[in-house]
């Protein structure tokens, strides 16, 4: 009877009256009232911006034994929140969480509320879940990450991000696994990993975590990039690399983002000074990109060699020489020879180019080769080589642009310094120290002032000019 009446009122959108009926009915014959009905009425009262009335309706229910269900408590908490009774709302939400731990509807608003109250730890605790079980509530985890990001808890954010990622990625456990993951196709990766792990006496077990409330791939990828950005902004380059490389083994990102991820992997290698894996990635790009190969790849390939020790690339240069162009191939070969100490081979490969392309870089490079040759202990006719060095450096200094005057002066000073003509070296170094140019103002990293100051410092030190040393230290070499 009361139920029908209340429902009719409800349908007619006269919620107040429905509420009155329910209140009366609850006292007289509680059996006629269902929690759903009450919830509906309360919901509608709330949306009609009358949370106080809804509250009145709900209070008797939560006090009774039969009706104090999680759903009712949740509604009650929402009402309290709407009435700005924050403390009570928090308590009610907590009751909901206690009554229905698997339910996450209460956790989000509760954590928000706690956050507003600056109770960070409690907010995080609310979002906690058991990570040892085989089930992961991804929605909850993402929410937690958001929270951690907002309160700036970077360390725990990283941990959460890791858990998120490892759902569909392979955990890198040893150094030798990085290479496997970095550049091969995914189909190859798993068997190779198995092999490496069996060698270590471990077994490869894919993780079978059941995820609930899985977000779409694009959304998760966006989140992943956000994580990367955070690592990068904090200069945590090792972490950055770890994340990217772990993601490279992902089954989820594999389809749409493999190439982009590999590019990110290269980027992280550069910043983390990991030339070994960076080198393999660039080489892979070079081999798999149909010609013409973008020049930047060669530049990056060479960049990797700046600190990569192994001499494995001589043959690679030979094989790729058709794609890169004659000059560049020879340059790379010469670089390789220079690092291996075979100056004559280096000179041999570059001098033929000099006639056709006497670029300042080439003359400078050959000048350096000859300089090395003239410093060797035995055998060569040093007398004849030294003038060649001087003239090559002169040629370089005449043809290099005036914008790089500082670099010219530095290298000339360095050359004279090497030959022990200290007064001329000091003259050039001083020119470097005084040099001003808009390019240097724009890119302070392109200023050679400190290098010149250091070399000048060495000259002064050798000659016993301690005051000069001190001046240089104070003026230029203060870190």
């Amino acid at each position: 009877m009361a139920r029908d009446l209340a429902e009719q009122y409800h349908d007619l959108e006269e919620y107040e009256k429905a509420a009155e009926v329910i209140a009366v009915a609850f006292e007289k014959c509680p059996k006629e009232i269902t929690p759903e009905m009450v919830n509906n009425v309360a919901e509608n009262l709330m949306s009609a911006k009358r949370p106080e009335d809804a509250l009145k309706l709900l209070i008797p229910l939560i006090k009774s034994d039969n009706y104090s269900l999680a759903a009712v408590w949740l509604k009650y908490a929402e009402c309290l929140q709407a009435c700005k009774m924050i403390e009570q709302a928090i308590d009610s939400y907590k009751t909901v969480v206690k009554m229905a731990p698997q339910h996450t509807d209460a956790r989000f608003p509760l954590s928000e509320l706690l956050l507003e109250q600056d109770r960070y730890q409690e907010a995080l605790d609310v979002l906690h879940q058991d990570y040892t079980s085989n089930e992961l509530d991804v929605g909850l985890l993402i929410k937690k990450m958001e929270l951690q990001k907002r309160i700036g808890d970077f360390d725990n954010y990283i941990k959460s991000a890791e858990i998120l990622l490892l759902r569909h990625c392979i955990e890198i456990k040893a150094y030798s696994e990085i290479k496997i993951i970095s550049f091969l196709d995914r189909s190859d990766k798993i068997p190779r990993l198995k092999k490496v792990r069996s060698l270590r006496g471990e077994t490869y077990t894919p993780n079978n975590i059941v995820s609930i409330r899985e977000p779409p791939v694009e959304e998760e990828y966006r989140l992943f990039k956000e994580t990367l950005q955070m690592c990068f902004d904090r200069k945590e380059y090792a972490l950055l690399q770890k994340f990217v490389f772990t993601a490279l083994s992902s089954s989820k990102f594999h389809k749409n983002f493999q190439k982009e991820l590999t590019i990110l992997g290269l980027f992280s290698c550069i910043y983390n000074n990991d030339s070994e894996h960076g080198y393999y990635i660039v080489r892979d790009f070079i081999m798999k990109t149909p010609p013409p190969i973008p020049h930047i790849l060669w530049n990056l390939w060479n960049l990797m060699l700046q600190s990569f020790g192994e001499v494995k690339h001589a043959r690679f240069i030979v094989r790729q020489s058709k794609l890169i162009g004659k000059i560049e191939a020879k340059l790379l070969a010469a670089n390789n020879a220079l690092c291996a100490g075979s100056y004559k081979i280096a000179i041999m490969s570059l001098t033929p180019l000099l006639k056709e392309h006497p670029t300042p870089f080439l003359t400078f490079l050959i000048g350096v080769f000859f300089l090395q040759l003239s410093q060797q202990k035995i055998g060569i006719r040093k007398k004849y080589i030294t003038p060649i060095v001087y003239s090559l450096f002169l040629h370089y200094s005449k043809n290099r642009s005036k914008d790089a005057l500082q670099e010219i002066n530095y290298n000339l000073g360095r050359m004279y310094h090497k030959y022990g003509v200290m007064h001329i070296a000091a003259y050039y170094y001083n020119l470097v120290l005084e040099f001003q140019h808009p390019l240097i103002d724009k890119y302070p990293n392109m200023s050679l002032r400190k290098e010149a100051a250091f070399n000048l410092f060495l000259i002064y030190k050798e000659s016993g000019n301690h005051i000069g040393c001190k001046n240089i230290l104070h003026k230029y070499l203060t870190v």
Partner: protein
Amino acid sequence: MENSNQTATDKSTIHDFHTKLVCIDYPGIVNNVGKMIETLGGMAEIERNISTKRKMLSLKFRPGDKYSKPTWSDLDKKPGILVKLTPKESVAAAEPDYNYEVVGITALTYSFNKLCDFQYLPLIAQEEENSESPLTNIYDKIIPHDIPKEKEWLFGTESDDMPFFLPPAIFSRFDNPFNHLYFDRSKFYEGRFKPEYAEMLRQQELDRKNATSIDQKMISRKSGHGSIFFSFKDVNVPSAPPKLAMQFLNLRCTNTGAYDKIKSLFEKRPIWSRAAILYFSEVPKEQLKFILPAVAFHFHNGPWRIMWCKYGYDPRKDPSSRIYQTFDFRVRATAGLKARVRTKRQYNLQRYRPRVTKNTPTVSLNEVVENAANDADNNGVSESAFMLKPGVMPPARQTFYQYCDVHLPEIQTMLNRLPPIMPGTVCDFKNGWLPNKFTDQCREIVNKYMIEQVQKANQEESRLLMEEQGQSDSVSAATSSIEEQKEQDLLEISDSDSDSDSEYLPSDLSDNDEDDVPESSKKTYKKKTVPSSADNEADDDDDEIDMEAVDDVNKLLQSNYAALKDFDRLVYDSD
């Protein structure tokens, strides 16, 4: 007596010298320690350098530029003492008095006394470059300063037409000033401002000339110190050392005991590998290179290649010499094996070693110092360099053994079971006296041992790791955990329990603001550099490198000599 008693009981005179520190003599005034460490490549890099016994630290004045070339440090093992001074408050200002306290001793000192390398900046002209052409900085295009969006960085339109920028990894390996000029400097000063200076220079030049005797000039690496490089196909085995070798021996090796020792070794066994001789004779390498050519000749191919053989002994005629044949073992490409065994030759530069990105094992500073000392003691050769035993890993990915030094039970039984050689059999170029495929079988066996060994080592390692970290969160991907490593390393290296940060770096000395010049730079004044010896070192290094290619190069050079001459002309014309 009284005095000494007093000092023994006075507590203020008892100092703790147990704390060992690493001193980095930084050429600059350090206000910001973080920035200073960045110029040295970061804390992890410094630790790696120290713990892996790489002798050099590198200092990049522009750490933000990956193309910038560093200056390299020297390493000094002379101990120093770090003393902390605090002014006493009670005493009147007229005569300042200090409390002092010994913080620790420096076990290793890195100082920077070498020239900074040449630099070439990534400022590139769009057109053909001349002195007027404007330059643009392409650094940011090569290395973006933020995480790249999509594929624009590598495969965008701009990346296609980007100019090439391909500088070598290093420009110059000689980084001490070279004071030898090819004209008489005294002539320049003669009759000018300072005649006495001219006289001094002339005297110096004379002294220098007298000091280097003619005999010493004779020494050239090309001669190989008189060694005979014997080819398998040569007909007659040399029966006596060449004259040159004996000359070298008399000239450079006055230690007759060493010569006798080597000689007796060759009496016991006619064929030896160099590593084994170094190990057993304990003769220093520098002497050995003069003694060996006087005692033995060198096979450069055939079944005994790279071995030294006694004069007059022809293994090609003696089947019993088969146990001395060379066993060339290379670690296979099986993933995981290579991670364990290093390549023999990386870039052969003393100061250009690979950056090992993997976590280096934690080493205490004591170990580093002791190891360095040990290396010097046992000639820098370990037994594993020539002997293969169960449970020993080869020191490099390619190692040459002699069969008699391969102490694996299977292989030794195989050797013992070999059938006797029929008279009339000819020694084969490839297999020597051994049957066909014998080497392959041996390689198979050794590889099995290797894999077992690697597995064992890996398991041991992971067990240790588990113990250390606790099984709970072994999120130890190799690229990560550098942070933890950092802390661990730091603790172990400085050998102290707490606030090691402050003790670790001597640059902290510059905290004494009342001093005009920081301690670190003060010290550098006092030190005299010895350019000549350092130069020698560099040259010796060079030795190794050039020997490999020297013959080829010479041939090439002779044939291309004309081209070189052409080149000379070109250069001069351009001026």
